[in-house]
């Protein structure tokens, strides 16, 4: 892709770019030719031809191809500079650590607490000044943040690829729905119960599958997710595909929030008159849950157990050789991840007030996984950003109506191609450079290179890739 000599003759380089762009657009038109020009009329069983869409496609792909090449080249140059650094064994690169991002700068500075306080204040004010639609989207985004953070423990931190995460989410949601429906239990009782059920199921699944690695683990978890969905569909007690409706929202000390309290809020705080105040309560519950999750995950990552997970992700055999109980580490990761899914599920059921098995499809697991990977595996701010992007983006794209998911799919590819490590890469080894002297802790260029790789973070395989 890179062609350093092109900088010498800009005219020729531009010409080459145009040629490449034309070629790409020609190729895409060729690809799109039958599907976009031929149209079937099913009632008369005839076929018609119309090339009216092709010129537009050609123009668009021409521009996109040139942009694509430009950005890919930029990305490649950055790779080169790192590689050069590596081969030269330059100590500076080693000492500097990862490039400071706005996030690490803010978080490392003394403004950390004021910034966090302002952010929190903003989040706390948001539901009072926004329309119901925005609050709804925010609740949903926050539910996915907590799901993403939970899965992050399993996939990002521990390196266990779980494609059936949605099963535990469903367990939480159905625990509340069923207990509420049949026993009349309230939200606050069901919240820990939902988490407990999900955790137990996580352990139950965890026991047999800890022997499996990589994609085999992925397929077993996928199967588990599908089994859960199918059983929920087939059982009578869950009312099958018709789902459970009229799930009660979370209560607040038995008060009717939509009564005088609402009138007060509408009159004095400028709350939207169409707002369901229960949604505001749900918003604060899920916000609290997310904050709790962040604290827990952050503490866990830097605990003995968290280190064990990281070691397990990097190399299972070596981690066992170090005396880490692999079985226990894997099981706790699985179970803890499931706990958050269960909690999020209970909140979700109370938020939506109606659930059915179609919500908990395989695609949902994939979306949560995408949140983790796209945000940056193992990185807490990354996962938060990932959830916001993946949940808010389709909402933003509503303006494109029928092209919404088309653009969403393309953006997913683009984000991955240009940020393969995720939007915010995990920077867990930042503190290492303080140890290093001129030569780094292990000394020597070889150690330096390994360190840089480690610093570059998310370029880690999940699970040994099976071929050593």
């Amino acid at each position, binding site marked *: 892709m890179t062609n350093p000599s092109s900088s010498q003759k800009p005219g020729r380089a531009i010409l080459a770019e145009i040629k490449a762009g034309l070629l790409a657009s020609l190729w895409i038109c060729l690809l799109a030719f039958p599907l976009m020009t031929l149209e079937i009329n*099913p009632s008369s069983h005839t076929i018609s031809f119309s090339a009216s869409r092709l010129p537009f496609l050609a123009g668009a792909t021409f521009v996109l191809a040139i942009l694509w090449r430009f950005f890919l080249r930029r990305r490649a140059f950055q790779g080169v500079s790192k590689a050069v650094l590596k081969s030269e064994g330059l100590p500076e690169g080693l000492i500097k650590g990862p490039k400071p*991002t706005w996030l690490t700068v803010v978080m490392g500075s003394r403004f950390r607490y004021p910034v966090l306080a302002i952010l929190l204040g903003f989040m706390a004010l948001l539901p009072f000044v926004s329309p119901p639609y925005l609050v709804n989207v925010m609740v949903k985004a926050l539910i996915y943040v907590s799901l993403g953070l939970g899965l992050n423990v399993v996939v990002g931190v521990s390196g266990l690829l779980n494609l059936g995460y949605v099963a535990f989410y469903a367990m939480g949601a159905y625990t509340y729905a069923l207990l509420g429906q049949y026993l009349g239990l309230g939200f606050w009782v069901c919240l820990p119960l939902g988490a407990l059920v999900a955790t137990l199921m996580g352990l139950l699944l965890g026991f047999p599958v800890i022997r499996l690695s990589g994609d085999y683990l992925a397929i077993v978890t996928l199967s588990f997710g599908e089994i859960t969905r199918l059983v929920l569909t087939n059982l009578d007690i869950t009312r*099958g595909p018709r789902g459970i409706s009229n799930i009660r929202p979370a209560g607040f000390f038995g008060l009717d929030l939509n009564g005088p309290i609402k009138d007060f809020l509408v009159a004095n705080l400028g709350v939207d008159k169409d707002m369901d105040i229960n949604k505001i309560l749900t918003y604060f519950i899920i916000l609290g849950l997310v904050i709790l999750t962040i604290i827990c995950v952050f503490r866990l990552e830097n605990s003995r157990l968290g280190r064990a997970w990281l070691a397990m992700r990097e190399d299972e055999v070596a981690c066992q050789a170090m005396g880490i109980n692999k079985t226990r580490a894997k099981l706790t990761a699985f179970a803890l991840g499931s706990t958050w899914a269960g909690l999020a599920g209970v909140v979700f059921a109370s938020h939506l007030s109606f659930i059915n098995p179609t919500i908990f499809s395989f695609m949902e697991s994939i979306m949560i996984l995408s949140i983790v990977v796209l945000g940056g595996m193992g990185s807490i701010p990354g996962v938060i950003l990932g959830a916001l992007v993946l949940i808010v983006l389709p909402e933003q794209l509503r303006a494109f109506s029928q092209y919404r998911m088309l653009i969403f799919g393309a953006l997913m590819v683009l984000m991955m191609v240009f940020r393969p490590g995720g939007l915010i890469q995990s920077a867990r080894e930042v503190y290492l450079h303080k140890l290093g002297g001129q030569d780094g802790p292990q000394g020597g260029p070889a150690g330096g290179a390994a360190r840089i790789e480690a610093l570059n973070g998310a370029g880690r395989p999940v699970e040994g890739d099976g071929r050593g």
Partner: protein
Amino acid sequence: MKSLVKFLATLALAAFLPLAPTAQAQDGGTLKIGFGGALLGDTASYGLSNLYGIEYAAAQVNAKGGLLGRQIEIVTEDDSCRPDLAPEAALKLANQGLKLIMGHTCSGATRSALSSYNNRVILISSSATEVALTEDGASPYFFRTTPRDDAQATIQLKYMKQKGYKKVAILHDKGDYGIALAEKMQNDIKADPGDIQIVLFQGITSGEVSYDDVVSLLRQNEAEVLIWGGYYSDASKLIMQMRDKGLTTVVIGPDGLYNPSFITLGGTAVEGSVATGQADLSNSEAAKAAIADHNTRHTEEIGPYFFYAAGAAQALFAAVEKAGTADDLDAIKKHLTEDTVETVMGPVRFDAKGDVIGAAFALYEIKDGNFSEIKMD
């Protein structure tokens, strides 16, 4: 890279700002009617057939000068038939200040959308069939032109008894529409079995590559007649594979099969199959004109919910015209429930619960590639 992260982060934050659609009062320009339903995903075809019906009704009114002197504009939001996406679609519509909304496409999505609308809008669905949506009485401004799930079993059972079938297999597609139909039939038979015996009651997986195993099951249980709960695409595939294997079991299906696409997909294999459907429209001039109009605009065949949707929209427009306002829900509701409107799907008036009155079902048998009505006493 750093700048890219910064850019994306700013983008993500800024993304929330335009998310807040300003609740604007309807200006004097166009009169906006909302449509919420499946426009994407595997159920998109059902949603689109609803939308086309509404667009047809709106175009008719617009050509005659509009409603209350204003041109009708349809605002669409997709929910992909998913209950978890429907609230956003619903709130997005409601937040624009829309008071008149058509939708949603599927029962589950309608259910969760209703709680988001929170009785702020008139909602008319033309394809949500679940009984409880109107039966529970929790949504005074919800109406539907599609018949309910429980309406079809009665006439189908009557037909089976008339024909003297004894061994009945009931299959459904595990969807909310299909399973409701199947269970209603099962309960009706159990309540008054006569000679009829249910030999099989199972759900099959929609969209499978092959239904040969189900065919074997039908053969093994010697079913004379198959009651199908589900849509036409799975049914046509299943029937074709039955006929391929030489199985002659008669198939009786719901209004999900009363659709030209069923015959197009099934070809000669579906010959002799029976479906319940709305009253015969083939002699109605209005319906003929609507079909002709549809075929000039779209290449696909007229969808299963086109007439229900067009009828719903016409009834709504008539009620708004008579009420003289597009904002007063109670006034519009009054006209919807008190006046009978002549629409492309026949006369439409709603009862107090919100169900359409007098949408009687007829039975059709497929003969020579056409639905022909079975006259019953």
